[in-house]
C-alpha cells in the first residue's frame, strides 16, 4: 500500500525520497520498540521494586489495609523487627546461608577444577565411563533422591548441619562444574603445559601455578552458579534442617510468613526478601557475562 502510494505521487512535495521514508519508518519502529521494551522492563522490575519500597515502610504502614502505594516515611524498622525474630534474628540466618554458600562454592571449585583437569588432560582406564557417570547426575534431579539422602545424612550424623547441606549442594553442582572446567582446560593449548612439565613441574603445581590463571573465566562461572544455587535452594534445606537456629534464609522466611503469633508481619517479610535477593542480584550484576556464558554453554552443549 505504502509503496503504491509513493509511486502515484512521486514528485509531490519532493521532500521525502523513498529512502528517507524508510528511515523515518525505521525510526518510528525503533521508538515503538523502546516503548514496548521499557514498558515490559517496568513490569519485570515491579515486584522487586515494590518489595523494596515496602520494606522501608513503618511496620504499621506495611500492615495497612488497603496498602499505601509509596512509603510515607522511610525507616528501617522492618529490618530491625526481623532481627528480633526467633532466637537468632535475620543476621544469624544470613550467616547460615553464607556458610552453606561459601562451603558449596569452595567445594565445587576444588572438585570441579581437579576433576575437570583430570578428565581433560589425562588418559586412564574407565575415564569415559566415569565421565558419563558424573554427567548422568544432571539427568536425574535431586528431588527424586531426597529421601535416601536424608536417611544417609541422619546416619552420618550430618543431618541438621550446615556442612551436610553443603555436601549435598556440592554434589549437585558437580556435573555442571566438571563439564565446564573440562571444556575450559581443553581450550588451553597443550604446548604450554608440556613445556612446563618438561621443566620439571609436578601436575599439581602446574595446575596451581599456570593453568588456573588460564581457566579463570570457567572458575568464576562455576563459583557464581554454586553461590546462587545454594543461596536460593529451598526444598533440601527445608527437609534437612530441623533446628530452627540453623535454617537458611529461604526456610527462615517461610517461618516469618507463617506468622509466629497468629498474624503475618508482611513488612518484616519483605525486608527479609530484600536481604535474601540482594547478594544474588549483586553477584549477577557484577559478573553477568560469566553467568550468561555459563548458562548457555552448560545448557546448549550437552
Amino acid at each position, binding site marked *: 500500500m505504502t509503496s503504491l502510494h509513493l509511486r502515484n505521487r512521486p514528485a509531490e512535495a519532493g521532500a521525502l525520497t523513498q529512502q528517507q521514508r524508510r528511515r523515518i519508518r525505521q525510526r518510528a519502529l525503533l521508538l515503538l520498540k523502546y516503548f514496548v521494551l521499557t514498558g515490559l522492563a517496568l513490569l519485570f522490575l515491579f515486584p522487586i521494586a515494590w518489595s523494596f519500597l515496602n520494606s522501608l515502610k513503618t511496620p504499621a504502614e506495611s500492615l495497612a489495609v488497603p496498602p499505601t502505594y509509596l512509603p510515607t516515611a522511610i525507616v528501617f524498622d522492618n529490618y530491625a523487627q526481623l532481627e528480633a525474630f526467633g*532466637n537468632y534474628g535475620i543476621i544469624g540466618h544470613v550467616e547460615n546461608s553464607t556458610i552453606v554458600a561459601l562451603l558449596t562454592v569452595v567445594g565445587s571449585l576444588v572438585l570441579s577444577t581437579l576433576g575437570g583437569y583430570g578428565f581433560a588432560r589425562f588418559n586412564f582406564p574407565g575415564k569415559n565411563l566415569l565421565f558419563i557417570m558424573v554427567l548422568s547426575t544432571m539427568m536425574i534431579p535431586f528431588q527424586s533422591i531426597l529421601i535416601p539422602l536424608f536417611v544417609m545424612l541422619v546416619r552420618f550424623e550430618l543431618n*541438621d548441619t550446615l556442612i551436610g547441606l553443603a555436601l549435598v549442594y556440592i554434589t549437585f553442582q558437580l556435573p555442571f562444574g566438571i563439564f565446564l572446567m573440562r571444556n575450559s582446560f581443553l581450550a588451553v593449548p597443550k604446548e604450554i603445559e608440556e613445556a612446563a612439565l618438561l621443566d620439571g613441574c609436578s601436575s599439581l603445581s602446574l595446575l596451581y601455578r599456570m593453568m588456573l590463571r588460564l581457566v579463570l573465566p570457567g572458575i568464576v562461572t562455576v563459583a557464581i552458579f554454586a553461590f546462587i544455587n545454594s543461596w536460593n535452594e529451598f526444598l533440601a534445606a527445608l*527437609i534437612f534442617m*530441623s*533446628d530452627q*537456629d540453623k535454617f537458611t534464609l529461604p526456610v527462615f522466611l517461610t517461618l516469618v510468613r507463617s506468622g509466629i*503469633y*497468629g498474624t*503475618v508481619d508482611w513488612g518484616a517479610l519483605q525486608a527479609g526478601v530484600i536481604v535474601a535477593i540482594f547478594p544474588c542480584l549483586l553477584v549477577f550484576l557484577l559478573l553477568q557475562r560469566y553467568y550468561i556464558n555459563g548458562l548457555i554453554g552448560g545448557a546448549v552443549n550437552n
Partner: protein
Amino acid sequence: MTPRRIIFAVMIMALCMGALPLSAQDDGVSMTMWVRNIGDQVQELVDAWNDRGGSQIQLTVIPPNEFVTKMGAAIAAGESPDIASIDLIYAPAFAAAGQLLDITDWVDALPYADDLLPAHSELGTYEGRKYAVPFLIEGSFIIYNKGLFEAAGLDPETPPTTWDEMLEAARAITAIDDETYGYYFAGACAGCNAFTYLPFIWASGGDVLSDDYNAATIASDPIVREALEYYRTMWEEGLIPESASIDDGSSFVSAFGTGTIGMAGTGAFGINTYRNDHPDLELGAFHIPGKEGGASSFGGGDVIAIGSGTQHPQEAWAFLEWMMSDETQLEHYAARNRTTVRVSMLENEYSQDDPLVLTAASALAVGKSPYSLVYNDLFNDPNGPWLEMIQIAILDGDIEGALQLGQDRFTQIIEG
C-alpha cells in the same frame, strides 16, 4: 597399662565423679524445649522458671504446620529436645515410636496424680505407661459479640443452645449491615476445624470415627452429613465472610477481633488475646451446641513430655513438677485466665467472677479428644482428607462427593 595411663585413667574417673554430683543438681544445666507457636504463655512460664536460677530452659518455637515433620526429623537424627510441648493428639504417636521418656513412676508418686485432667492424661498414656502430663489446656467453645447480639435485637444474655438457634442468631446479625457477619470459621485451616467443628458432630451424638477409632463412620453416620449441610447453609446464605474460605489459620483468632463477626469458635487462648487487643469488645461465651441441644468440646492443647534422648531427665522432671504444683497453677495459670491442668483447681479464686474462663474450663467437662496414631494425617494435615472434605462440602456444596471422599481417604489412612 603403663603408669602414665593409669594416672590418666584415674584423672578421667576423678573428673567424671566430680562432674556427677554437679549434673545431679540443676546448676549450670541448660535444656532445650520445643513448643509449637501458641502465644506467649509458654515463654512467661519458662522465664519464670529460668528466673529461679538453677537449670535453664531454652525455648524453640516450631510452626504448628511443621511440628510433626521437624520433631520426627530431629528424633530420627537423635537430636530431640530435652522437653517437648506436644499437641496432645500427637502424643500417642510419639510415645509409640519410643521417643518419649517413660515417666509413669514419677507421675504416680505425685500427691495429686489423680487430679490431673483426665482427657489429657489419657492422651499421654500409651499401652498403660505414662509418657506425658497435661500442659496447655484448650477446650473449644463459641465466643460471641454481645454488642452485635444487641444490635440484631437478640438477647445478649441468652446465647443459642441448638443449631437452629445459632442459625437464627447468625442470620439476624448478618442482617444488621453490609459489614457484619453472623459466624466465622477458618475455611483453609485443618486443625482449626477439628477443634471447633468436630464438637458440633459430637454434641449431636455423632462421630467421624468409630468408638475404638479404628474405622471411619463419615458415610454411615447421618449426623456428619447434617453437620456439613448446616455449615453449608450458613456459607450459602452469606452468614460467613468470603475471606474465611482461604483462612489457613492466620486469621482464625483475629477475624473475630475486628468486631464484625457475631460468633466464632475459639479456645481459652482467645480470651486473653481479645481482651488485650480489643478491650472494647463485649464478650460472651457458650458451649458448642448439638443439633437439638447438648454440648461438646474438643479437649485440645498440649501435653508435655521428656525426650527419651535427654541427658537431664531429673532436671526436666523438676520443671514438669514445678509446672503442675499448686503455686504455679495458681500464679501462672489461674491468675492469667488460663485453664489449670488440675481438675480441683478449674474453679478457683480468679475464675469465679469470669464467665468466659468458667465456660472455657467447664467445656473440658463435656470435652473429648480423639486417641489416634494417625490423627495428624486425618485431621491436622493441611492436605489431609478432613479439610478437603469440609471445603468440598461447605464451599463447593458437593456434600455427596465430600462424604465419599472423606470416607475413602479416612479408611485408607486408618488402614495404613
